[in-house]
């Protein structure tokens, strides 16, 4: 046997786990001294990993993962983001973004509140979407805190994408593939054909859906699933564990495989709740910049800019807002709007301006409930000597936004997905110290 053949066999036997401790020492000495042996070992390792990729791709009946170069990512940012998803979604390294580009129309935009944009999977440029538009496979983004986009598949399944959320969708051999990259999604899924269950993914979870109503929140480190009707199979991607989440239950799939994974009954919706920004740090998905108490100055939340919509010329309309989203609390909460519900806000502005308080809702059965607003004119605020004002508003006085008016009459009886308090197109340094939902 030649020296090279001896060396190769030694390397292969190490990789086979067949070396004695003495032989391992011999191999280590060889590798320290012989660059060619190190190169050989590197190449075997690269070939082994590549072989694994190819075999895995074939097992999934999909193409191998793309070779990612800087140039390619720069020219196709969608792929870059899809790659992030693929990484986080385990074996799905080859999932949604590798489907062949398709021109087939998949969904229709049936309701749109605020601004939303779409880019096709086949590389189409990003454009602002309009109600009634039909979309191919691609990525839809609800821009801005108060945005809401509802799309409908041909089979009648509805997806409602919440504000500041991003969703990719495609169809493969009749099966709907959905990836919620960030934000919230409510879904009413019609019964799917046998063998073609809808598959949804987030960075931390995968779900299979036969036909059901549920809400999904893709948060930084976990996924919250709430099932209102039917049953959803939830897989935690970090360890592959699968659980069934039945109707009226919720589950959280986190990045931590040691964390509990189980379905628990959705707690009864609360009608009284409050958040004290002077003491509590809000979840990082709430809009606003939180300032903790420093040197005797109480904590507070100050508004941040967001895109509220698009002017006819395409210009972004910017509002400055603070949001409260109970789904992002730990544990998440459900807030129910009753006929005698009141919101109370303690706030401050650095100059007078019209404010908007918007309620983002869903129905108790989990479907989209519409957005409702109340405008506050400057004369309605009565600041004290310290500049702070306290507002109390009955939920009955909230009216549906223009986009919601046709289908949703009142916030009463709905679940509050979020409350968004904004100054319109003017940065007033809107600041909030307390928010309460009460009954009177």
């Amino acid at each position, binding site marked *: 046997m030649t020296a090279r053949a001896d060396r190769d066999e030694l390397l*292969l036997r190490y990789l086979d*786990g067949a070396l004695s401790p003495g032989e391992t020492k011999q191999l*280590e000495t060889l590798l320290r001294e012989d660059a060619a042996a190190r190169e050989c070992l590197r190449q075997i390792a690269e070939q082994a990993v590549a072989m694994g*990729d190819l075999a895995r791709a074939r097992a999934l009946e999909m193409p191998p993962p793309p070779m*990612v*170069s800087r140039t390619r990512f720069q020219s196709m940012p969608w792929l870059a983001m899809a790659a992030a998803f693929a*990484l986080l979604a385990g074996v799905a390294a080859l999932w949604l973004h590798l489907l062949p580009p398709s021109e087939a129309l998949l969904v229709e935009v049936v309701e749109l509140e605020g601004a939303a944009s779409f880019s096709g999977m086949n590389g189409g440029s990003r454009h602002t979407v309009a109600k009634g538009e039909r979309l191919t496979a691609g990525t839809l983004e609800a821009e801005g805190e108060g945005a809401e986009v509802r799309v409908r598949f041909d089979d009648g399944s509805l997806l409602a994408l919440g504000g500041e959320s991003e969703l990719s969708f495609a169809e493969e051999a009749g099966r709907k593939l959905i990836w919620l990259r960030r934000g919230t999604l409510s879904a009413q899924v019609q019964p799917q054909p046998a063998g073609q269950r809808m598959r949804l993914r987030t960075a931390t979870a995968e779900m299979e859906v036969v036909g059901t109503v549920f809400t999904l929140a893709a948060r930084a480190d976990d996924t919250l699933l709430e099932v209102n009707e039917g049953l959803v199979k939830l897989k935690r991607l970090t360890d592959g564990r699968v659980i069934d989440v039945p109707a009226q239950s919720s589950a959280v799939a986190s990045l931590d495989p040691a964390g509990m994974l189980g379905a628990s009954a959705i707690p009864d919706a609360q009608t009284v709740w409050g958040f004290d920004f002077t003491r509590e740090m809000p979840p990082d998905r709430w809009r606003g*910049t*939180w300032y903790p108490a420093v040197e005797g100055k109480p904590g507070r939340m100050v508004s941040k800019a967001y895109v509220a919509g698009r002017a006819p010329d395409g210009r972004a309309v910017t509002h400055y807002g603070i949001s409260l989203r109970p789904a992002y609390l730990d544990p998440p909460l459900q807030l129910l709007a009753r006929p005698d519900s009141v919101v109370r806000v303690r706030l401050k502005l650095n100059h007078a301006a019209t404010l908007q308080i918007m309620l983002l809702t869903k129905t108790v059965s989990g479907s989209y409930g519409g957005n409702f607003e109340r405008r506050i004119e400057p004369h309605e605020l009565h600041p004290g000597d310290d500049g702070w004002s306290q507002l109390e508003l009955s939920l009955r006085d909230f009216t549906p936004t223009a986009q919601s008016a046709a289908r949703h009459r009142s916030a009463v009886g709905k679940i509050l997905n979020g409350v968004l308090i904004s100054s319109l197109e003017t940065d007033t340094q809107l600041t909030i110290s307390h928010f309460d939902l009460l009954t009177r």
Partner: protein
Amino acid sequence: MARGERTVEHGNAGILCQDRIRSCVSLESMMPLDHETIVRTLFAARARLSAAVWLVVRDAQAAEDIFQNVTVKALTKAVAFEHEGYLLSWAMVAVRREAIDWLRREKRGAVSLGDDVLDLIEAEWAMATPAAGGHQVEALRDCLEAAPPDAREILELRYFEGRSCAEVGAHIGIGLAAVYQRLSRLHRALKLCIERRLVAGAAAFAALPADP
């Protein structure tokens, strides 16, 4: 501002505090990589990071899982990565640590190469430019796809299914020594194939007309 961070007032100076680690640095000194850059950078280095893991664990699926875990950690890590070099250095350390943990947990008694040897090998990997690495892996995939079915079967049994060489031999009806010889020849053939493809690729690029 990155996730999990809130601006905190502190006198007149802007400082950035991270919720989880409660440490603050001056805003001026911090330009963290965004998530897209982190993913792009790690994906570009995926071949060598996964291969470095594989050298320790010798299990393709575990190598993939560990690479993904480390990517998740990079995206959810409280400390910001200020440049790609730092990210890659951190990732190389992280994958090796996870690989050794995995080996201790899943294959008790399995022997790994010493740290100094792994350091040498990883340093040589790090010297390869990402662009060259990308072309090389593309060429490798082409070569693997073009390999005869029996060759692919051996490689797949050994490296995808994770069977030992003795099991591969039993499966295809040859002895252990013959498996080592075949694998050795296959790896050499793949190396030659890659080199040829890279040369051909370079020649094809060289033959392109110059930009006007």
